[in-house]
C-alpha cells in the first residue's frame, strides 16, 4: 500500500512578526540609520519584515551602551546574581520554545522538526549550562578570580541563528562581559525575539545589544576600538579578513570557520547506523553546517553495499515545507547560497564525478536543492576540497586505514570528522590521528553545551562550549 502522509503543518499563529524591526541598543528598540533591508521566507521568497541597518554611529551607540553596562552593572555584579538572569533567560526560552522554533523555521528555512527538537532545546541547554558556571569561575582552572574581558563584539551566521547566538552570548554573560551581537542579514528575526526575551527577563540595559545589518555593519563592529573581544562564526574568507583587522590590537579573537569534514566508514561498521549517520552528517539543516560530514570516505570493500543502502535511505527523505512536521530537508537559506551550491555541484559534474539524487518534487517558489550524492570523486575535485554548505555529499573510497586518515586530513580545514567501526581500538587510533576539533565515533553532528567545539587549521581557533569555552571570555 502507498502510505501517503497528509500535510501536518505546525501553526504559524504562535508567532507575531512585526512589519519592521529596529536595533536593540541599551535595553530598547531604536531606529537604525543605515539603509533598511528585508528578510525573506526562503521557502516562498515572501518578504517577512523590514529590518533596520546599523551605521557607524549606531555601532558606536551600541558599543558605548555595552561599555556602560559592563562598567556600572554587569562587570561588578557577583557571579551568583548574573547566574539568576541567565537561568531566567533559559527558562523563558523553554517557555517560548514553540514560538522560537516556528520563527526560526520561517526565517531560516530549516525543518520544524530540527528547530523544535535540536536548535531550541540546545539553545536553552546552553544558557542553563553557562548559568551554572557564573558563580563557579574560580573553580574552572583559571585561577581564583578570573576577570572578564569587557565588551564582546560577536558576529554570527545564518545557519543556526539562535543557537549561534546562544553559543556566543551565554558564555560571554556568564563570565561578566557585555555584548554587541550582529545576526546574519538573512536571519535576524530570532535574535530580535531574543532581545524581547532579555527585556522580559529584566536583564539590565546594555548588557545585550543586537544590531542588524549586512557585512559592512559586521566590519564596523569587529573593527571598533571600543570592544575587547571578537567572536566570529562564519566563512573562512571573512574569518581571515577579521584576523587581519584584529591583528596588532589587544582584542582577543575566536574564529569558528568552515569545514570539509571526512566521515570515515570502515568495513566493520554498523552499516544501517552508518547510513543514518551519513544522512545526519550531510542532510541535517540542508547541509548548512560548518561541521557537516561532506566527504564520505568509505572502505572500498563495503562501498557498493553502503551506497545501495544510502540511496534507498535518501529516497525516503522528505523535502519541502519547513513548517510541515514530516519534512526532513527544508529550504536553502538564500538565493545567493543556492547559486553557490549549484555552481559547485555543476563543477562536480564537469570534473567527472557522477551525480545522483533521489526522485523528488521541489516546490515551484523558494530556494530548493535536492539531496545530492557524488560518486567517483577524487581528492583533486573542487567538490572534495571546497565547502559547499549544502545538501551535497562527495563519496570517496579508501583501501586501508592509513589511507583513510591521510585523505581525511588532506584538507586545509579541520573542524570535525566521523569514524564508523565496531572496533573500539580503531576508534581511539583514528581519533588520535585525525586533525579535527571534534571526532564523532559511530554518530555525527551531536552537540552538547558541556563539550568544547572548534577547529584546527583554517577551520578557526578557540573553543566554544564546555569549560574551554569560558577561557575565550576571560582575561587568562
Amino acid at each position, binding site marked *: 500500500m502507498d502510505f501517503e502522509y497528509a*500535510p501536518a503543518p505546525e501553526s504559524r499563529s504562535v508567532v507575531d512578526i512585526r512589519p519592521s524591526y529596529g536595533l536593540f541598543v541599551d535595553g530598547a528598540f531604536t531606529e537604525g540609520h543605515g539603509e533598511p533591508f528585508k528578510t525573506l521566507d526562503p521557502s516562498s521568497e515572501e518578504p517577512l519584515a523590514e529590518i533596520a541597518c546599523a551605521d557607524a554611529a549606531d555601532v558606536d551607540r551600541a558599543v558605548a551602551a555595552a561599555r556602560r553596562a559592563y562598567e556600572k552593572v554587569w562587570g561588578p555584579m557577583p557571579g551568583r546574581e548574573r547566574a539568576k538572569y541567565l537561568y531566567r533567560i533559559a527558562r523563558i526560552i523553554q517557555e517560548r520554545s514553540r514560538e522560537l522554533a516556528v520563527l526560526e523555521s520561517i526565517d531560516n528555512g530549516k525543518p520544524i*522538526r530540527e528547530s523544535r527538537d535540536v536548535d531550541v532545546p540546545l539553545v536553552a541547554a546552553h544558557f542553563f549550562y553557562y548559568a551554572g558556571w557564573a558563580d563557579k569561575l574560580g573553580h574552572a582552572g583559571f585561577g581564583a578570580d578570573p576577570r572578564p574581558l569587557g565588551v564582546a563584539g560577536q558576529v554570527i551566521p545564518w545557519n543556526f541563528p539562535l543557537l549561534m547566538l546562544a553559543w556566543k552570548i551565554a558564555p560571554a554573560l556568564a563570565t561578566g562581559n557585555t555584548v554587541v551581537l550582529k545576526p546574519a542579514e538573512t536571519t535576524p528575526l530570532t535574535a530580535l525575539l531574543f532581545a524581547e526575551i532579555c527585556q522580559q527577563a529584566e536583564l539590565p540595559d546594555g548588557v545585550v545589544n543586537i544590531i542588524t545589518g549586512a557585512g559592512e555593519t559586521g566590519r564596523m563592529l569587529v573593527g571598533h576600538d571600543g570592544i575587547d573581544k571578537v567572536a566570529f562564526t562564519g566563512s573562512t574568507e571573512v574569518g581571515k579578513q577579521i584576523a587581519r583587522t584584529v591583528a596588532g590590537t589587544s582584542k582577543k579573537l575566536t574564529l569558528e570557520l568552515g569545514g570539509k569534514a571526512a566521515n570515515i566508514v570502515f568495513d566493520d561498521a*554498523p552499516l*544501517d*547506523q552508518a547510513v*543514518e549517520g551519513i544522512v545526519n552528517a550531510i542532510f541535517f539543516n540542508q547541509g548548512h553546517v560548518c561541521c557537516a560530514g561532506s566527504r564520505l570516505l568509505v572502505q572500498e570493500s563495503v562501498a557498493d553495499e553502503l551506497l545501495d543502502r544510502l540511496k534507498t535511505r535518501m529516497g525516503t527523505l522528505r523535502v519541502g515545507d519547513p513548517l510541515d512536521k514530516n519534512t526532513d530537508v527544508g529550504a536553502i537559506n538564500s538565493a545567493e547560497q543556492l547559486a553557490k551550491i549549484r555552481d559547485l555541484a555543476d563543477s562536480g559534474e564537469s570534473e567527472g564525478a557522477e551525480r545522483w539524487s533521489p526522485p523528488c518534487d521541489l516546490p515551484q517558489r523558494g530556494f530548493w536543492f535536492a539531496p545530492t550524492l557524488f560518486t567517483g570523486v577524487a581528492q583533486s575535485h573542487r567538490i572534495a576540497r571546497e565547502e559547499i554548505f549544502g545538501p551535497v555529499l562527495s563519496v570517496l573510497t579508501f583501501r586501508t586505514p592509513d589511507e583513510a586518515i591521510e585523505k581525511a586530513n588532506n584538507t586545509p580545514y579541520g573542524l570535525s570528522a566521523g569514524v564508523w567501526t*565496531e572496533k573500539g581500538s580503531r576508534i581511539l587510533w583514528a581519533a588520535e590521528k585525525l586533525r579535527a576539533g571534534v571526532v564523532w565515533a559511530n554518530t555525527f553532528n551531536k552537540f552538547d553545551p558541556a563539550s568544547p567545539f572548534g577547529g584546527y587549521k583554517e577551520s578557526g581557533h578557540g573553543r566554544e562550549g564546555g569549560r574551554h569555552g569560558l577561557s575565550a571570555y576571560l582575561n587568562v
Partner: protein
Amino acid sequence: MPTGAELRGFLHGLPGVDQVGADERAARLGTRSIKTTAKARAIDLAISMLDLTTLEGADTAGKVRALCAKAVRPDPAQPDAPKVGAVCVYSDLVGVAVDALRGSGIGVASVATAFPAGRAPLEAKLADTRAAVAAGAAEIDMVIDRGAFLAGDYLKVHEEIVETKRACGDAHLKVILETGELRTYDNVRRASWLAMRAGADFIKTSTGKISPAATPPVTMIMLEAVRDFRDATGRTVGVKPAGGIRTTKDAIKYLVMVNEVAGPDWLTPDLFRIGASSLLNDLLMQRRKLATGVYSGPDHFTLD
C-alpha cells in the same frame, strides 16, 4: 542443511548494530506526524493487520467464540470497520476458533512448540504443531529455543525451525524470537536471519509473556533484516511485533517504520501483523472519533 560452523560464520559475519544509533533512528521515526486522511487509512490498515490474541491459561471455548465474533465485526456501530487479520489462540482451542470463523475469511493462528518457553522435547513441540494444523490452523506461531541460541547452538535452533516448518505443511510459519530474552540488537539481527534461512514465513518479536515485548528499535532491526533478506535471496518474509502495543499512536508509529524501513511492499496483512488484544478498542475509538468528531467512552466498545 548447513553445518554449525557455517551458520556461526554467517551469523557472526552480519554487520553489527550500534545500539545508540538504532534507538535514535527508531525514536526519530516515532516523531512522524500522521494526521487526517493518512491517519484514517493507517487505522484501517492496522485493524486489518491485527492478530487478535487470547493466550491465557484460563481460556475457554466461550472466550474464544466471543473473541472470534469481535474479529469478524469489530465495531457493531460502524459496519465498514475492516475485519482483523487473524485470531490467535492456543493449539487446543484451534478447532473452536475455526468453527466460529468459518466463512468469515479470517484465518486462525495457533501458538505451538510448547509456547511460551519452548522447553520441551522436539517431538512434543512437533506434536503440538501437528495437532494445531490438523485442527485447521492456517498459521503456526512457534518459539525458538532461546537457551540454545544464547549457548551458541545455532544449528539446534535451525533444525527445530526446519522440522516445525515441515510439520506445518501448508500452514504459514511465524517464528517467535522472544527478543526480550535475546537482549542485544546483534542477537535480534542474527536470530532474524537464522529464522529466515530456516524457512520462516514471518519473524515475530515476542510471546507477550516476557517484558520487554515488542519495541520500536527491535522491530526496526527485524524490518531491516527482511528487507536485506529479500535483496539477498528474492524471498519476502513478514514481520510481526507482538505484545505491548496498546494505542493507536503506537500502532501508527509501527506502520511508519514499516513504510520507511522495509518499504511500502510490506504494508499488507500478508507481510505485517501486529499481535495485540487491547489495541483493537483504541483503534476503533480513534476511528469513530475521526468519523464523528467526538470521542465515545470506553463502554461504547465491546470487551471480549
